[in-house]
């Protein structure tokens, strides 16, 4: 048994008062969870503490909270680990999740945000017509591909800390987009192109993600929502050639081609290339000009903060020729592949174990 200092963020909408902090000391074994600590404080000291929970085993997804500023499941965070990450070295701070309105104490309104967004992505399988008379036998590999997104328990931890959603509350967000990949990646679904077109053209869709990795860090189940969003983009852009009106696809291609051509990102060329494409001609397209003009504030800011210099606008960063060659070799290797390799981190380890031993050795020596 050890003593732990717990600091809870309390809020009661009925008093009309601002949220406040409340401290409790609990006595539990260090391997017990933060949820057990909250429940001990609730049972022994203040029954009015509001916290959602059910299974205490990281499978129901009810107890999503922030522990020392990091989102996760209270039942999946050990007290000793929480103490180790305490900012002052002794107080475990528990707050409600972010990006969602707080109903009371640690309870947030999942309906108003998370579930609305899940509903947005048509979270069910749309069957091929005519519906087959017998069961549809799905190839094993394609199910492996969607397993990661299926592991989601809807706890909201990724939604809590999505930086894009903080700026744009309408962003469909990591959980719902991961959910949509579950169907986009399913060979039985008849709506792959429609779904992707919809998610690309939505100004709050797949191109709203900024690759900040927060959702991957947050997820207690290893779903890696950002990776699912990147898969959606690859299928939308590479397989269906969807060029969206948000310029997301072209912007991404501009990054890729700039690194290929110069080895480093050429910031000054990024916007022109995103709008105008890979040629000088494209930049003089009236549409590109208009969009460039609308980006002037961003460009001015970049100049003021030293992200772009006037000289930098004229020529790209210097990089030794042999280094550039190495960068371009990577491109060559990747682009010469016949098939795009989708690496499923979630079960890749187990998958290899299942390969017949001869194949495994071949791959290892290759």
């Amino acid at each position: 048994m050890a003593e732990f200092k717990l600091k809870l963020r309390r809020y009661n909408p009925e008093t009309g008062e601002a949220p406040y902090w409340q401290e409790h000391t609990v006595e539990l074994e260090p391997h017990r969870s933060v949820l057990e600590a909250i429940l001990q404080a609730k049972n022994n000291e203040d029954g009015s503490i509001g916290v959602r929970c059910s299974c205490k085993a990281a499978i129901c997804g009810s107890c999503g909270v922030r522990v020392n500023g990091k989102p996760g499941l209270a039942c999946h965070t050990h007290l000793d680990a929480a103490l180790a990450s305490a900012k002052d070295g002794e107080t475990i701070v528990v707050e409600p999740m972010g990006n969602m309105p707080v109903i009371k104490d640690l309870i947030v309104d999942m309906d108003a945000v998370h579930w609305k967004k899940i509903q947005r992505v048509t979270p069910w399988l749309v069957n091929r017509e005519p519906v087959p008379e017998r069961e549809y036998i799905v190839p094993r590999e394609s199910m492996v591909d969607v397993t990661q997104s299926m592991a989601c328990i809807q706890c909201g931890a990724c939604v809590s800390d999505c930086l894009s959603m903080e700026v744009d509350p309408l962003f469909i967000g990591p959980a719902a987009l991961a959910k949509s990949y579950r169907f986009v990646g399913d060979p039985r679904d008849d709506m792959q192109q429609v779904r992707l077109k919809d998610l690309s053209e939505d100004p709050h869709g797949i191109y709203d993600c900024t690759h900040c990795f927060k959702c991957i860090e947050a997820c207690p189940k290893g779903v890696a929502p950002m990776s699912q969003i990147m898969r959606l983009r690859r299928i939308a852009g590479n397989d269906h050639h969807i060029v969206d009106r948000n310029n997301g696809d072209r912007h991404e291609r501009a990054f890729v081609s700039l690194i290929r051509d110069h080895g480093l990102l050429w910031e000054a060329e990024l916007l022109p290339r995103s709008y105008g494409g890979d040629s000088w001609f494209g930049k003089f397209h009236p549409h590109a000009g208009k969009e460039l003009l609308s980006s002037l504030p961003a460009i001015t800011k970049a100049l003021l903060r030293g992200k772009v210099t006037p000289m930098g606008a004229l020529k790209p960063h210097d990089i030794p020729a042999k280094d550039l060659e190495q960068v371009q070799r990577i491109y060559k290797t990747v682009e010469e592949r016949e098939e795009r390799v989708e690496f499923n981190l979630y079960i890749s380890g187990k998958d290899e174990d299942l390969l017949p031993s001869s194949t495994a050795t071949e791959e290892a020596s290759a």
Partner: protein
Amino acid sequence: MPEVDDAKLHEDEQRLKEIIERPKTGRRVSEIKDELGTTMNQYVAVYREEEGLQKAHEVVRRLKEEAKTAYVDDQGTVFNQDVLGAVELGYMLDCSEAIVVAAIERKESRGAQFRVDYPDRNDEEWQKHIDISRNGDDVPHVSYSPVTITQWEPEERKY
């Protein structure tokens, strides 16, 4: 949806109000819940015997009395899990009493009940259901009903 009876609704509202307004003189709801859990786990798990079951019965009866004055901290109307806990405690106590009474009643071992004092299965006397019904707020009422044997004939369990 069946129509909600206004009188019943009013009665339930009063019941919640009564819980919320209880003075803080009795025990905490969580304390009673904890004692109930510990008792049931100790005496009414798989291995059971008369003495322990009688003890458990006494405790449950006492806790039922104490639950009537158990107080809650949360007086609010938003997400009041405290008052929900108090309501659920009543159901838990009812279920616990039914379990204990039936366990005392069944003087044999069968399925998940292993009576240390009656280790054998006794089909002759006990191949029947024990039905426990709520008898107002007083002691539960015990009755029996016959077992319908379908596909599987009962036989001795051997591992």
